[in-house]
């Protein structure tokens, strides 16, 4: 079993088509909705955790794309600018999923994108702008997405 967090963007023309349930029905993938936002008449965004064998996840993603859903791998959308991070830890206490955590013995802060739900807290709190593109649910963010 593997897990991948994906951001699904439903443009207005397909917004209300039922496709997600077929991930479970046709592909036997386990999915977990981490966050969802619908901007009426514009687009819907869903952050989904997909769980299953690697190749089945890929098939599921291909199925969504064939149905005109824009699929972005979260690990390619959200990252830490390593040179900017001073490992202070200011973000750690606010991260809801422990995607950011402190590690002994040198107390460096690790970022595990697979746990990230793109809530945006770390981007707001980091004094050095080290957390990038973490506000995928910003209603003004749509212009940044290539589709």
């Amino acid at each position, binding site marked *: 079993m593997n897990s991948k967090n994906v951001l699904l963007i439903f443009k207005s023309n397909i917004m209300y088509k039922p496709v997600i349930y077929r991930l479970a029905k046709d592909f036997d993938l386990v999915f977990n909705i981490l966050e969802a936002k619908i901007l009426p008449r514009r687009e819907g965004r869903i952050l989904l955790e997909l769980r299953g064998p690697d190749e089945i996840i890929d098939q599921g993603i291909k199925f969504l794309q064939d149905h005109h859903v824009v699929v972005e791998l979260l690990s390619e959308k959200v990252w830490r600018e390593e040179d900017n991070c001073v*490992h202070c830890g*200011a973000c*750690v206490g*606010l991260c809801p999923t422990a995607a950011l955590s402190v590690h002994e013995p040198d107390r460096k802060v690790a970022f595990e994108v697979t746990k990230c739900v793109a809530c945006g807290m770390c981007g*707001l709190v980091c*004094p050095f702008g080290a957390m990038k593109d973490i506000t995928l649910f910003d209603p003004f963010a749509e212009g940044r997405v290539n589709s």
Partner: protein
Amino acid sequence: MPDFKVNKTFEEINEKIKKGTVVVVTAEQMIGVTREHGPIEAARKVDVVTTGTFGIMCSSGALLNFGHTNPRMKASKVYLNDVEAYAGIAAVDCYIGATQTREDDPQNKVFPGRFRYGGGHVIEDLVAGKPVTLKAYGYGTDCYPNREVEKTMTIHDFRDTLLLNPRNAYQNYNCAINNSKKTIYTYMGILRPDCMNANYSTSGQLSPLLNDPFYRTIGLGTRIFLGGGVGYVIGAGTQHTAHSKRSENGVVMGGSGTIAVQGDMKQMSARFLRGASITGYGCSLNVGLGIPVPVLNEEMAMFTAVSDEEIFAPIVDYGLEYPQDGGSVLGYVTYSQLRSGEIDFAGRKIATASLSSYSAAIEIANTLKDWISSGKFLLGKPVETLPSMDFKGFPNLS
């Protein structure tokens, strides 16, 4: 002064540094050395203990002289990358403060403001060797007729660049929580309502003034690691006081001592001077600072062996109390509790986070250790130590 079994002087230690026989350990390593050998043996073995801290330090800034222009000018307003520097000093001197925001910064008009660029960032850019735009305005005099200058400069084009911080390296500091019902954006970070998280901001056992709690060896003339280069303590910082509550071991249980420091920015590194943007609060500067503490006797060995379990931070509510000039202490927690990631407060568990980088503090203490061991860095004996108070001594040493 009590009689000590070990008595060393700055001069003796400096001789050892020159000969390459000096023994230096970090404040973290000193804990183990003293536990294993006892304070007297530890004082015999170890000559210098190095410390470090890398945190947001408001009350920092740079004194810059941009050199005379042709024709000459007496600047009364100066901007660097649109951040104002105070110019009421002389003709071409100015002081840029870390918390000054850019002229067109929306500040907190759209709350919480992001404060993406300010005085601290100008200092970082200068030290990184990046070009900055200088704009200066004068009213014109017979000897200084020029009224306006605009030019792009790097740090090397400035005649003098002195980092000059009136208050750095707070000895100890609050652990901040928020007892109110809404999220608040403070200089202690983002604090969620109903005490959902707690932030602290010193490097604890590695923190410079916590390793010499009575400032026996620190004062005007102490040579230090500052911003990646060499700097000096130039006296007590603003708001310095020795008279705060102390635990049995003499360690302060809150703010207390501070230092004013200076150093030539041309030999510093942007890795240890970083502009900071604190959401909802403003701009500042992260300063890397480390002090070498000489182990002159067994009492200094005890002081430098202090560990996170023995250092207490006061819990203060920034939601309701602190803004109203309150700030009563709601309780104390040790740094080892804070560093565990969770503290017990009012019957529940609260997630903690540090605003100062412990991993950078280790790096600073290690760098300083290397400088001293390799003979590059001699101790500066203070001409005058910081104002202090009496200590009754450690019971096991008398």
